């Protein structure tokens, strides 16, 4: 077995035994179960129903909590390994930094992506069992969005772990980035919009830099764009950009951001002191 996959494989095995992974899996699996118990599939809200409605609710919650899960667990484990000298020992073996770093990235990706995907597949199975139709287009779009969401925040997490050497500071930093992307950018943009200082196009453009905003809009994009549940930004985007193009962008762009950040993290990992 190649060293890259050895590292990835051992990382996955280690994660699966960790408490955070148990909580992580229970939260996302539990979310699906909860929605079913709450009867989301039976309710008819705002024109759409059944599994579509359930998956929409799932992805909307996931977009908010998955990034902070990914940031905290990844940053904690990587800089934790540094803090308590695990890295010092493991790197004393003849494994290239390239294999070590990307092996960790692959291992982490599998552990954060697969449980959220399985939760969705679980929903499909229960839905099938209950006899509701399967909204394949939504399922495929959301799988893509989850993939992109995991990539982008994993990339950010690896970059933070490479820059910040202490796990305490790295944790604080992760939390800040999450809050910033989640709320502050929106608030700032809304206030700019209200003051009419910048053109609408520019503001929308800026909001599209934020992967969180892209996910939010993409998640509702397959539903009727006239719906009032969407914010003004989403409405504007879906009104002005062709839907297939936007969907492609919503998956490609965050994935690219993640790869880019992870790559930057690797450069820094190589260039600075390891322990």
């Amino acid at each position, binding site marked *: 077995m190649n060293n890259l996959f050895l590292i990835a494989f051992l990382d996955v095995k*280690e994660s699966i035994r960790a408490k955070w992974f148990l909580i992580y899996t229970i939260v996302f699996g539990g979310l699906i179960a909860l929605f079913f118990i709450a009867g989301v599939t039976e309710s008819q809200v705002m024109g759409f129903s059944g599994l579509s409605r359930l998956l929409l609710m799932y992805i909307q919650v996931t977009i908010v909590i998955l990034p902070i899960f990914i940031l905290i667990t990844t940053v904690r484990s990587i800089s934790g390994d540094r803090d308590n000298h695990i890295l010092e020992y493991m790197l004393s073996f003849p*494994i290239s930094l390239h294999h070590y770093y990307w092996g960790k990235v692959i291992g982490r990706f599998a552990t954060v992506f697969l449980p959220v995907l399985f939760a969705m597949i679980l929903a499909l199975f229960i839905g099938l069992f209950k006899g509701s139709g399967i909204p394949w287009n939504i399922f495929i779009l959301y799988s893509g969005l989850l993939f992109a969401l995991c990539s982008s925040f994993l990339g950010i997490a690896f970059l933070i772990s490479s820059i910040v050497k202490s796990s305490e500071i790295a944790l604080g930093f992760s939390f800040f980035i999450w809050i910033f992307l989640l709320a502050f950018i929106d608030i700032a943009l809304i206030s700019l919009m209200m003051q009419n200082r910048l053109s609408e196009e520019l503001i929308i453009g800026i909001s599209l830099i934020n992967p969180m905003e892209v996910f939010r809009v993409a998640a509702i994009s397959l539903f009727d764009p006239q719906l009032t549940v969407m914010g003004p930004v989403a409405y504007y985007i879906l009104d002005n950009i062709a839907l297939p193009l936007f969907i492609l962008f919503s998956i490609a762009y965050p994935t690219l951001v993640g790869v880019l950040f992870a790559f930057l993290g690797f450069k820094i990992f190589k260039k600075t*002191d390891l322990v």
Partner: protein
Amino acid sequence: MIQIENLTKKFGNAISLDAINLKIQSGDCVALMGPNGAGKTTLIRLILGYYHPTNGQVLINGKNPIKERVDVLQNISFVPQLPPPIKLSLEELIAYVCKSTQVQKEKILHFAQEMELDIEPNLKKSFFKLSGGMKQKMLIAISLARRGEIIIYDEPTANLDPKARDNFHRLLQTQNHPNISLFVTHRIDEMRDIVNRQIYMDLGKIINDEKI
């Protein structure tokens, strides 16, 4: 051969190693001594290629341990001062070692037995759940199995009981391969049978270097 030329390492403004020159040749068995904060661990980490020197260079058999990391580390086995809380099971740790270094599993098991570490019933256990002494024995067994051309031990016996310490010294003496050993130690009397050179460091400098 470990060749250290004009090696300086600063962290911020604090100098941890101050323009050190040192040559360690095949056959040298060194006791590296000095008070806490002298720079011993920093020196070792530079040899292992973990730190980027502020100035000067380290060469292991003529190779740069950062640029030719895999080549250099193929020949070095290292045991840290405190066994880290590795979360892998013993089985997984052994797999990691075997796959990355081409050491046979049987060899590790053999040296574990020599160190009187009962490894079979613990294979599925996480490494960090072993007692301090058991962890240290495991890391020593791994390092002996690797038979590195260069062995670097940062206070290897700190956690061991006297019996285990004797075992360890006996195993070291039966290894008889003509290479380099570097022991950080505070107890020179204990190591006197093993080492043939003593280097004393303080404040990032080599104060004394003699054959014994």
